[in-house]
């Protein structure tokens, strides 16, 4: 699961920083913007089968690779 999420993030941010630092703030650093966020939600839906409505998405709960992995695992 961790690998799937990191693959998605690496693809979307175009950088391996998300793999090197699992606690990096992807919004603060500008790695992921709103557009990228929507793509991430769609990818998570397609690859991990979790359904996150846009309005459920609370930035502070999804701002690092570690948090995203934890979220995805809790939702499966």
């Amino acid at each position, binding site marked *: 699961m961790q690998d799937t999420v990191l693959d998605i993030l690496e693809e979307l941010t175009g950088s391996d920083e998300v793999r090197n630092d699992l606690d990096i703030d992807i919004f603060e650093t500008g790695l992921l913007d*709103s*557009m990228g966020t*929507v793509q991430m939600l769609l990818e998570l839906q397609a690859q991990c089968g979790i359904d996150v*409505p*846009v*309005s459920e*998405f609370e930035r502070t709960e999804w701002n690092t690779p570690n948090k995203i992995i934890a979220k995805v695992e809790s939702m499966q």
Partner: protein
Amino acid sequence: MLNMQPYQDPTYFVLLALGLLPIMIGMLYEKRFRVYETIISFLFLLLTFGGVKWEQGLALIAYTIFELLLIYGYLAYRKRKNASLVFNLAVILAILPLVIVKVSPLFDQGRESILGFLGISYLTFKVVGMIMEIRDGIIKAVNFKEVVHFLLFFPTISSGPIDRYRRFLGDYQKKIKRDKYFKLLDKAIWYIFLGFLYKFILAYFFGTLLLPKVSALALSHGGWSWWVVAYMYVYAMDLFFDFAGYSLFAVGISYVMGVETPMNFNKPFISKNIKDFWNRWHMTLSFWFRDYIYMRLVFFIMKKKLMKNRVAIANVGYLTLFLIMGFWHGLTWYYIVYGLYHAVAIILCDAWLRFKKKHQEKIPHNKFTEALAIFTTFNVVCFSFLIFSGFLDKLFFV
């Protein structure tokens, strides 16, 4: 009967201090006096929407009943079914009063609609946000008292910051420990005094003292002149200090009541680019647009595969967002041009950021380039405020 607009004069602040004192004492003993809270909220609303403004008061009541019926109606429907048509209809109905208020002066020789009242646009944001979250199945039930408190929360009723139902509710229901409340009070006092500095000293200096002088000079000179440039900067400062000052009051008073209303400004004039600027300027509005319009639209386009190109989708999103923001400000050419201007600016900004990412090694990055970025952004933003001010309309078309 007495009438006072929020945060305008010292008496209002004295009344606030007196009215909120029992709430503060209660909070220090980790108690919320709900009945008193309701009464005091009602009295402050009466102070703003009563007396000479009674017509606005009636409009506010009618509006609130209408929107509550809509929320309850849609919620009841959503429990059984989930058709897009009904959702769209609910959103249209939710914004209908605001649309009527914005459009009717155009057809009625500039006369204001009787449906209008101070803060109607901000209330509409709250309601539309709720409808969308009901659609997403995140709001499953509402409590009458809580939803009324949320909609009519008096510290933010006139001009935001725009809060969100689930966030507000969390604060409203939370038990706040005494030491945590002390910290809130601490911040509240700081915000309110910073607000005094912003609104009653700086905005007074720029807006009341300087602006009329610069404006008269620019108008008497006519056409483009350095006075227009001066007007642009003075107006930008006035706009910021006035609105940021107001927002600090609204946030500070919310804190006193144990509600951590989100901040509206975060040093917008040190933004490195336009995207950064919109993460710092009128944040509760721009985040509302980001979450409820931009992201939903992009999500919809991508999911239905209406368009393929990522960049094109983002740009369609920006144009939609900023055009709606322009129209929301009002139906004049300069508000709409202001919206378009920002859409174009952010589209160019995105293109530049993509280019920069590709050619990272070739583009210098140092203290000087950072200063240049801030300077450029500041001027691009100030020019947008000049458009927004309507001064160009006065200068060239009236």
